[in-house]
């Protein structure tokens, strides 16, 4: 039995609109997906006001997506996700046990043969996406992390150290619209930007890397642990495909492997696939947004 930990997460999002919203559509990624590393015991999304339509679905990446429609005027929207989940420690992955990065690149690239199913699935996360355009700057930046013959996980961890070292964690310096290239130029950002930059570097080397959205454990009051940035908010990190070990999750914002402290909501190619809440409103004027996350370990 691997070590495990039980969490209760409460994620509260409140929009206060400047005027009445006449009609709106919302898309939520607020339900944790099950995986070998975690099992969701219960979850509920409470909405105020109640939507005129609600549908829960599974998206092509396997995430639970909730779609809402409001067709009556409202000037406030409150979304509360309550989650009870068990997280298990991922199996120890020895970097030396992963293939050389060039071998991974060659195996993932098309060569006119039948691909292995898990390789084909990984290929979804290997190409450019809206937030992660693959530029030469990323290839160059990752150069020293990817010397010939290095195991892919060792290279990825080295890259994570480098990004953590070189980029400043600076809330407010970027927005949710900031692309990997913009954050790279600014040399600063938040967890979303760290993850995008790392994904861009990995993909520029031909690796498969996905964006993981989730939460980070909050420490009990009075105990501060300055090394864990991103607590009390939603968090994001990266998973990299390291055959034959499989996917290994790395948190470049905190320079750690994701483990017992990380609760996964959803994954996709970048933030755009899994943003916790996005919507299009008719009317409403300027809005104020408040987000509160609490993560309690049992």
């Amino acid at each position, binding site marked *: 039995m691997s070590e495990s930990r039980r969490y209760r997460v409460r994620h509260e*999002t409140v*929009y206060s609109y400047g005027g009445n919203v*006449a*009609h*709106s*559509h*919302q*898309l939520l990624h607020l339900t944790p997906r099950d995986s070998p590393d975690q099992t969701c015991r219960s979850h509920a999304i409470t909405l105020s006001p109640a939507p*005129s*339509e609600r549908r829960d679905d599974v*998206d*092509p*990446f396997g995430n639970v997506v909730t*779609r809402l*429609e409001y*067709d009556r005027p409202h000037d406030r929207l409150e979304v509360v996700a309550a989650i009870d989940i068990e997280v298990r420690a991922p199996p120890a992955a020895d970097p030396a046990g992963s293939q050389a990065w060039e071998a991974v690149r060659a195996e993932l*690239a*098309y*060569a*006119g*043969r*039948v*691909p292995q*199913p898990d390789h*084909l699935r990984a*290929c*979804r996360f*290997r*190409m*450019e996406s*809206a937030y992660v355009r*693959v530029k*030469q700057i990323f*290839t160059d930046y990752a150069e020293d992390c990817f010397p010939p013959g290095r195991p892919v996980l060792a290279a990825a961890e080295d890259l994570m150290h480098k990004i953590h070292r070189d980029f400043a964690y600076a809330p407010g310096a970027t927005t*949710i*619209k900031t692309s990997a290239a913009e954050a790279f130029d600014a040399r600063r950002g938040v967890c979303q930007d760290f993850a995008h930059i790392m994904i861009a570097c990995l993909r520029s080397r031909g690796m498969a890397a996905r964006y993981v959205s989730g939460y980070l454990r909050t420490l009990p009051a009075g105990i501060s642990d300055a090394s864990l940035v991103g607590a009390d908010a939603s968090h994001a990190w990266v998973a990299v495909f390291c055959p034959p070990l499989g996917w290994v999750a790395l948190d470049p914002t905190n320079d750690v492997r994701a483990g017992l402290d990380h609760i996964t909501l959803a994954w*996709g*190619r970048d933030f*755009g*696939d899994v*943003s*916790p*809440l*996005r*919507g*299009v*409103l*008719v*009317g*409403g004027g300027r*809005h104020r*947004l408040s*987000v509160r996350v609490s993560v309690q370990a049992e």
Partner: protein
Amino acid sequence: MAETRLDTYASDASRYDELLDDAGDVRPHWRPLIERLAGDGAESVRRGADLARRLITENGVTYNVYADPQGRDRPWVLDPLPLLLTAAEWREIELGVEQRARLLDALLADLYGPQQLLSAGLVPPELPFGHPNFLWPCHGISVPGNRWLHVHAVDMSRSADGTWWALADRTQTPSGPGYALENRHIVTRIFPELYDDLGVRPLGGFFVALRENLLRHAAEGESPLAVVLTPGSFNETYFEHAYLARQLGLPLVEGHDLTVRGDTLFLKTLGGLRRVHAVLRRLDDDFCDPVELRADSALGVPGLIGAVRAGKVAIANALGSGVLESAAWMGFMPAISERLLGEKLRLPSVATWWCGETPALEYVIENIERLVIKPTFPNQRFDAVFGRDLDATAKTALVDRLRARPHAYVAQERLAFSQAPVWRTSSPQGFAARAFGIRVYAIATPAGYRVMPGGLARIASDAAVDVVSMQRGGGSKDVWILAPDRRSIDESGAAAAATRAPARHDDLPSSLAESLFWLGRYGERCEAKARLLRATLGVRAHDSLWPHAADICRHFGAMSKSGEAEIQLFDESNPLGLRADLQRLGWCAAQARSRLSAENWRAVGVLQREFQEAAATVGDAREALDRMLLSLAALAGFALDDMTQDDGWRLMMLGRRLERLQFLAELLGLRLASGAAPNQGELEWLLDIGDSTITYRTRYLASPRLGATVDLLVFDQSNPRALAFQWQAIDHSLLRVAASLGGTPDDTLDPAVALVQEMEPVAIEGDSTRAERARQTLGERLGELAAAAGLLSDRLSLKHFSMIDAELRMVAA
């Protein structure tokens, strides 16, 4: 003898020649055309070329936006000589294109469904997954009839040995079928007899089939509604969107005209929400739904993918179909065809190497001299380059680029396009040889894909150039497919008449109704201001009249606070000035373009041009105003005689009447409210503005008197300029609009009109205090009538156009 026209036509041994065979003789199927043109010399072609140019200008056929003040619009270029293809040649193309459409449809179904081609290793995952038009939110969706590709276009060219090759596929929103139809209309007007004699297959049936394909998606018992979705009038092919909508008899709409409620798509019409069953879209894939696709797109319809997912609407072409627009697919087509159709690929693609495979990359680098290098994906910043055009440094740089990201590049063999005769208008006039490519269209029908018997030939701008592109200044040609025998011509031409289905009033999008309403208001407002300015410039020498008249002009914004009328006329910065109103008029006309006849649209263009010319030349402003008033009168004439008189038209006329009433009531009210009696010069000035000088003279045969002037301008129901004429017409229109939408009008001008009608025109004449008070009262009541007209306009907007939403806002957390 026939060949004498051809002395300017040069053969090129490296190309296939459509006109001449290897011996230099005219091919048999071209002979009737060449002989005919030789008959009366070059003259008929020259006249034909002139006619084509004129028709294109008159019909407003443009490749870019017309209403743009910077003149970004570019007239469509059409060569008068058609390209002729025999029935046998065409049969091969037709079979090839039909199969290709079927194949790409099946490929889309696989990519957005089981992805078995990827699992089988027949297709590189890099191609769909790296393509910006591969839309993951559409994966797993089932579309009506499993039909993904409704309209397909293939760009083709012919190599030196006479073989046709596919160069590119257009699977997203293939442009051009409307231009092809317009080309046909123009060329058949140039050569009507030739067209009949040669036995050319008609195009009309293709558009009937397209319309039917869209309308058959309605559920049992519902009246079907399909729309053409455009990104708007600033799109480069907006002309075609409007043209197609008109030809197909479908409403032309923008994203904000549509709304998704629950899982159903609706059009916001004058009569309320109406369910939409099919959308022929000209909006790019990722702009279509800001909820699930590009969040920064205000052009799309929030929730559209939800309606598609629920199977409630057919989108032509399916969202995400742009993923096939990449040259990289070409090399994989034969194997895909074997796998998905069990058929050998009929139409060969030009030799293509996708550099993502190592052997292909090495071959490309080895042979770069004779290849064209292109980007794999449309969002790359890389223009196609010819390897042979590069110097050593550039070549090394390119090779480095290929090695760094091989999957992002494709190489193709250069194809020497075949050449055909065009008419050269510059000296020496005559036939000239130009390389060309054709775009061929197929549409889905319940019986399979149907290929348009014709197409769009695009010609290179220069004899030796093998790039055909409208953006690069090439021209176009009509493509005539010669029928195998006379009988087969009737296949579908008879049905073409049915294409122009009557527009139903309940299909009228609210936003179009609003544009028409404001088109009416601005047309009238421009006229009122131009009249006011012209009349005022005429009284400039009148020391007693001029300051007051100029004040009135300032009140209406026709002049700004200081300065001369001439200067104000052309002042761009004055937001209330004539120039600004003309721009608004042009904008409304552009929005309503799908409802305006070619002549009407042209008149709007003429007006804009006249104004620009007037602004550019220093001359008498009154002359410029004269010209403008003439053009504005033409616009008013089109409004009366040239439009279907449905609710949209009624709202436009309401706009005109309301504007006229409001302006004149306000003008007279302003003048009378002071109580002072206007002098004779002022009365003449007022009659001039009210366009009633001649009426007055013929009726009274005397110099103007106040009572008679007011009677003519306010109370005379037979004077189409009088207020009474307007309020009657407004009443009538309100009743008609309300009745057709099933109701009674909520608002009228009646109370304000009644107060004006209480007044006696004779009572305001004279110097008595009583007359002065009567003038004041009438002035005030006219002012109130003007205000009531403004209020009515606002309430009409609220009632009929309120479904036009405020701007969309995107939020994310």
